[in-house]
Structure formats: structure tokens, C-alpha cells
């Protein structure tokens, strides 16, 4: 039992924080916000050089075999800089699903390329009518003589506009009709009759909606052997939520520091804002919540390889609790910055918006407290 960072982990943290501090500032973020790609390909190449894209991938596929704790260290630093590169989509979700579900051939074909930065992935799973229910998929994959025919609508696809391959979930329907299984399909972004409508994502980066109307795919597009992919999707999204939780901690820490600084300097009625006990206590509550968020994010990371119920409860618990503190810290940062906080003149708003996006991604606090509760019942309701 030891929660101290190892020397390697400490080094990773230092290098990530240094990189972020040097490469990301307000100007860079403004440029990216108006960029059609929403992130910098140069930075992505640097991620590859630093080994960060290879981090969680197994060594046999060109990776470093790192753990969720290291991913968390990286993500917390990313949060400090509001990094908008498609790390979650490609590395945390994409690579993990390929590694868990893919055939050896698929893994060999894709994972080394992710590690070296030449392939980017995205996961298209959410649908509007499903809300946050991961099991609810209306997209259909019909088995055809030549392969597969996919039809459906996906929304909120993280970084789908930048992906070379999009992993699309669909209900498999074969000769005997609906199989009850969800399959994951590798769909090249170049596939005809795939309509990608991308948009600026709240808090930075881009997401997209995808229309699939009779998208024809070869047999080999199916990731793996056609076992129901729902458990893998849940597993991957739990990992993504743990990573996003660490990112949120980084964001909150910046907001806490910035707001603290501001209340010391800003004067009202002849004295600094921080002279108000109400504001000191508010900041104390923010600090407590950031500390708690750090603890619970770490817990989710340490549990990503636990058995499914434990893993899912840790991930949902962390997502729910950090979502709540993120809203509190974000909203209070705006409040304590006063009028300026509500404008684009300061960066507080950008950090706040990323936290709002965090709380929404993969379901908000209430959804995840509910999932945590349902998974925790010792008996089944009558």
C-alpha cells in the first residue's frame, strides 16, 4: 500500500507540466478555438516523440505498457493547459478498444501507428435518443454477402473530424435477424456516404455528429470476432472518465490558483476581495473540493483494472463527484471574478467551459450517482 509517485511518475509529471507550460497560452488557445482542426498537428507529433501516444499501449504493439495512473498524470497536466489534442479519442478510447477487441492483425495494423502518431481514431457510440444509456444503440449493422451495411445517426463524437478511422458501434443483424449483440466497426473517415458534421466543442477542441446511411464495409471492418462489445465499451468509457477526471483536477487547480490571486489583488470598498470572510471561506471550500477531486480521480485510475462492478463504481463515483465539484469550482471562479469573469477577456471562462463540458461528457453527476447506486445494490428491488 503506497500512494507516493514513483520516480518515473514524478519525471513524467514534471515533463508534462513543463511541456504544457511552454506550449500552451492564451494566444495558442484562441488560435485553436478558431482553427478548423481545433488542435495543432505539430503538437501531436511532439506527443508522439515524447512517447505519450504510446503510453498505455502494450509493448508488443509498439507501446510503453503504462498504467492509468500515468495517463492521469498526463491528463492533469493537459487540464492545466486546456490541451485540445485528441488524446482521449485516439489513445484512451481508440487504442484501448482496438487492443481489447481487435484481432491480432488489427492490433498490429493500428496500434503501432497510433503510438507513432500517424493514425488517429474516434469512437462514435452516442445517439440522441439513447441519452447516456450505453446499451441503447439504434444504429444497425446488416450482414451482407460482401461484408456489412451500416445505418444510423451518431452524435457527440469526440474529435471525429480529425480521425483517420472511426470506431462505430452498431447492433449486429445477420441472416437470422437481430443478434442482440453490439459490434464495433472500423470505418475509414474517407468512406463514401459517411456524413460528418463537426462543430466547435464547448471548452475547446471539436466534436461531430455522423450520419451513416447505407455505409458499406468489408467483412474485416468488424473489430474482433463479433462478441457483444458492450462490456468493452463500458470498460473503455470508464477508463476515459478516469482520465477526464484527472484532467478536470488540473483545470480546477488553475481556476483555484487564478481566482485566489485575483481576490488578493482586486479591491472593492477600499480593500482586497479576500478580506471578506465569505470569500475566504468560499475559496477554502473550493480548495477542499479540488483536494477531494484529486483523491477520487486517483482512486478511479487505480481501479480501472479491477473487476467490472468495482471498476464501474469507482469510475462513475469519480465522474459524479468531480462533475459536481467542477461545476462548483467553475461557477464560483466566475462569480469571484465578477463581471470580467463572464467575458471572453479573461481565460477564466475558457477553463469554466471546459469543466461544464467535462460534467456533460458521458453523462452528468446525477446519471453517474445513479449508475453507482444501481451497481451497488446488494439486493434487487421488488
Amino acid at each position, binding site marked *: 500500500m503506497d500512494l507516493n509517485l514513483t520516480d518515473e511518475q514524478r519525471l513524467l509529471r514534471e515533463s508534462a507540466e513543463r511541456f504544457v507550460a511552454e506550449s500552451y497560452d492564451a494566444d495558442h488557445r484562441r488560435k485553436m478555438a478558431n482553427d478548423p482542426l481545433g488542435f495543432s498537428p505539430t503538437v501531436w507529433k511532439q506527443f508522439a516523440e515524447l512517447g505519450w501516444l504510446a503510453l498505455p499501449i502494450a509493448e508488443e504493439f509498439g507501446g510503453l505498457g503504462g498504467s492509468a495512473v500515468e495517463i492521469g498524470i498526463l491528463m492533469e497536466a493537459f487540464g492545466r493547459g486546456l490541451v485540445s489534442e485528441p488524446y482521449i479519442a485516439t489513445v484512451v478510447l481508440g487504442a484501448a478498444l482496438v487492443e481489447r477487441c481487435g484481432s491480432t492483425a488489427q492490433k498490429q495494423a493500428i496500434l503501432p501507428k497510433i503510438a507513432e502518431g500517424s493514425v488517429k481514431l474516434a469512437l462514435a457510440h*452516442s445517439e*440522441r*435518443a*439513447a*441519452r*447516456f*444509456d450505453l446499451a*441503447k444503440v439504434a444504429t444497425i449493422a446488416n450482414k451482407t454477402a460482401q461484408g456489412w451495411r451500416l445505418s444510423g445517426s451518431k*452524435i*457527440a463524437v469526440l474529435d471525429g473530424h480529425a480521425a483517420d478511422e472511426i470506431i462505430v458501434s452498431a447492433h449486429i443483424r445477420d441472416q437470422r435477424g437481430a443478434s442482440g449483440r453490439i459490434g464495433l466497426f472500423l470505418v475509414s473517415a474517407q468512406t463514401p456516404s459517411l456524413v460528418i*458534421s463537426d*462543430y*466547435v*466543442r*464547448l471548452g475547446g477542441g471539436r*466534436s461531430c*455528429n455522423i450520419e451513416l446511411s447505407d455505409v458499406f464495409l468489408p467483412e474485416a471492418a468488424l473489430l474482433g470476432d463479433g462478441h457483444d462489445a458492450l462490456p468493452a465499451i463500458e470498460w473503455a468509457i470508464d477508463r476515459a472518465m478516469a482520465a477526464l477526471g484527472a484532467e478536470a483536477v488540473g483545470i480546477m487547480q488553475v481556476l483555484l490558483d487564478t481566482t485566489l490571486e485575483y481576490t488578493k489583488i482586486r*479591491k*472593492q*470598498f*477600499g480593500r482586497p476581495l479576500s478580506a*471578506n470572510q*465569505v*470569500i475566504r471561506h468560499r475559496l477554502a471550500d473550493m480548495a477542499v473540493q479540488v483536494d477531494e477531486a484529486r483523491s477520487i480521480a486517483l482512486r478511479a485510475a487505480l481501479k480501472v483494472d479491477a473487476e467490472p462492478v468495482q471498476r464501474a463504481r469507482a469510475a462513475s463515483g469519480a465522474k459524479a463527484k468531480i462533475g459536481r465539484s467542477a*461545476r462548483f469550482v467553475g*461557477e464560483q471562479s*466566475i*462569480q469571484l471574478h*465578477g*463581471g470580467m*469573469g*463572464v*467575458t*471572453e*477577456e479573461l481565460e477564466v*471562462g475558457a477553463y*469554466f*467551459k471546459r469543466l*461544464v*463540458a467535462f460534467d*456533460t*461528457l458521458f*453523462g*452528468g453527476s*446525477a*446519471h453517474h*450517482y*445513479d449508475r453507482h447506486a444501481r451497481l451497488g445494490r446488494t439486493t434487487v428491488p421488488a
Partner: protein
Amino acid sequence: MDLSFNAEERAFQDEVRGFIAKNLTEEMKRATALTPSVFSDPDVGMAWQRALHARGWGAPGWPVEHGGPDWTPAQRWIFETESARAGVPNVNVMGVKMVGPVIIGFGSPEQKNFYLPRILSGEDYWCQGYSEPGSGSDLSSLKTRAVREGDDYIINGTKIWTTHAHHANRMFALVRTSDGPRQQDGISFILIDMKTPGITTRPILTIGGDHEVNQVFFDDVRVPVANRVGEEGKGWTYGKYLLEFERGSGIASAKLREGLKAIAELAESDLTGRAIDSPDIATRISEVEVDIDALEMTELRVLSALQTGQNPGAVSSILKLRNSEIRQAVTRLGVDVIGHDALAVEPMRPLYQLNHEPAVPEEMLTVVPEYLNGRAYTIFGGTSEIQRDIIAKMMLGI
């Protein structure tokens, strides 16, 4: 005690409904619904002002001799409630509700004759120059200075958070004409033509992506002394009068209810995967609805007291505090209701004139901007922290 309307009040309600049905176009309604900031764009809002003015309802709170309709408090309640229910545009409140009453109370006969009809008709569009960088909630520390030079003041300085300064042709402003022993002494209330040389306006974008407020710079701006309202150095008093004029006439619950209704409809729609069936959304809608019920009752208690000439007491801070908190609760509920779709940012404005297909259904377009812009509710007009200071001091004596 009776919550229901009497026969006259019901008749008036029918009259208001008839007026709205006849004058409110679908375009106006849609534009209002698709405006994620507090104020309607002037093309929308002033069209409504003209319709109201034609009916003699251009300035509900004004005395009859200046064109007010002479309504009872209950009639004002009915008018505001029906307007909110129907989703009418916002008129230029800085004219009708803010500078108008000050001119009526303290302006010269010339000022009254010149400005009041132009507010009623919508010919003038006003903005308010109070706040300055560095003097947020502590307004009395303002630094914009007006120096007397013959029959003019020469104004230098800057105002911030100036709503619709980029639309307005006139501004009423508090400026410093001398340095009194107390900060609030030596402030004067001045009417400024926005086309006067030396005035420049810098847009300030909100985090919701809207251009609603501005910073206005004054560089040797020459304004006739005749444009000062009331006495020199008494501007602070007039500004306070304005606040008292507003006190007790707060009728916010009807608008809040409509905002909540729109969110509840989204929650019950397939567009959100029936968010209402998700944990906590339904009960949060109820929580907010009950909060609005309580606010409405407080407003009606104040109204009843006013109706019989009683002083409603220091409830205006409670109304301001709760109104702003409930507004924020509504907008936040909106974000949680639309779920995934809260991630999509639509940067184009105005939203009712988009020339492309948005990433989310039209009903959702204002949800996130309203939440983001709505953070300002607990900041502007005196932060919630300051309202609590006031409640503690005025109501509790501590």
C-alpha cells in the same frame, strides 16, 4: 385573502391577451425565444415598443400626464404575466424603466418635453453608463470626470458593461463633477448623445458568445450643461431613486416560469431521449417550479401591500437574490437536460438568422449560451454577496 382575479381584473386580462394576439408576430416570438441574452435586439424590441405605444401602453410605470396608462399594481402584474407567457420581446428598459423615471422625477420641463416622447415612441434607444473598470459593486468610487467649461462639460474616462451601447443613440451616465468629502458626493447625472465626437465603443463578448455589453471611452467629449439632470453633485441621489422606483415592481416569476416550461418541454421530448425519465431531472424541475411559486407569492404579497398603500419593507434584496439564483437554476437545468448536445457551440449571431443547419435542434440553441451568460445574474446589479450584506443589515440589523 384571495388569489383569484375579480371581474375587472379578468376583463383587463382579456384585453391584454387580445392585444398580444393581434400584435405579436411569429417572427417576433421566434426571435425572442432565440435570444440568449437578457435584451432583445433593437429591431425586434423596438417594433414591440411601437405597438405598445400605439395602444397607450408604452410606459406602464409612468404617471398619466407623461403617457402612462394609470394601471393598478394588479393590472401591471397581469400585463407583465401575460407578456411573459406570450413571449413578447424585451423593450428598451434603460429608456422606459430607468432614465424615464429619473427625468420625470428630476428633469427640467425642457428635458421632459424632449426626451419622454422619444422614449415612448422608440425613437431614442438608451444605454446606461454607471459601472467602470475597477468600480464594480463599489459604484461610488467611479472616476469618469466631467469638467465644466462654459456651458459644457468636458468628459474623460471610461464606462464598462454598457449594455447595447453599440445600438444606443443616447446614454445616461453618472460622472464625477467634483470630489466631495464622501465618495458619493460630487457625482452628477448626465444625458449624452452617443454621436458626440470623442466617444468610442469597444465590444465585450460574453462567455456565451454574445455581444451585449461594451466598454465606452470618453475622450474630451463635450456635453452641454443643459444635459445634466437635476443639481450638480446630486447624481448619486437620482441613481438611488431609480433603484427605489424599481423596488416592489419586480415581477420576475412569470418569465422564470416560461423559461422553466421550455426546459421541461425539452425534457419530455425525444430530442433529449426523454431526460425527464432520467434520475433527478423531474424532481429538479419540481424544485425550481416550487421556488418560482414561492417567489410569485412573495411578489404578490408585495403587490397587495402596495395596493393598500403599505410599505412592503426591505424585500427587494430578497427578490433580486432569489430571482437571480432561480434563473441560474433554470439555465443549469437546461444544460443538464440537453445532455450530449450541450457540447455543441454555435458561434453565429443572431441565432434567429442562422444561414446554416445548426448541430443541434433549434429548441436547444440558446440553452448553453443562456447558462453561460446567466452567470452574470448573481453579479450585475449588486452581487449576491452584496445582497446578503444588505439583507443582514437592513432586515436583521447586523
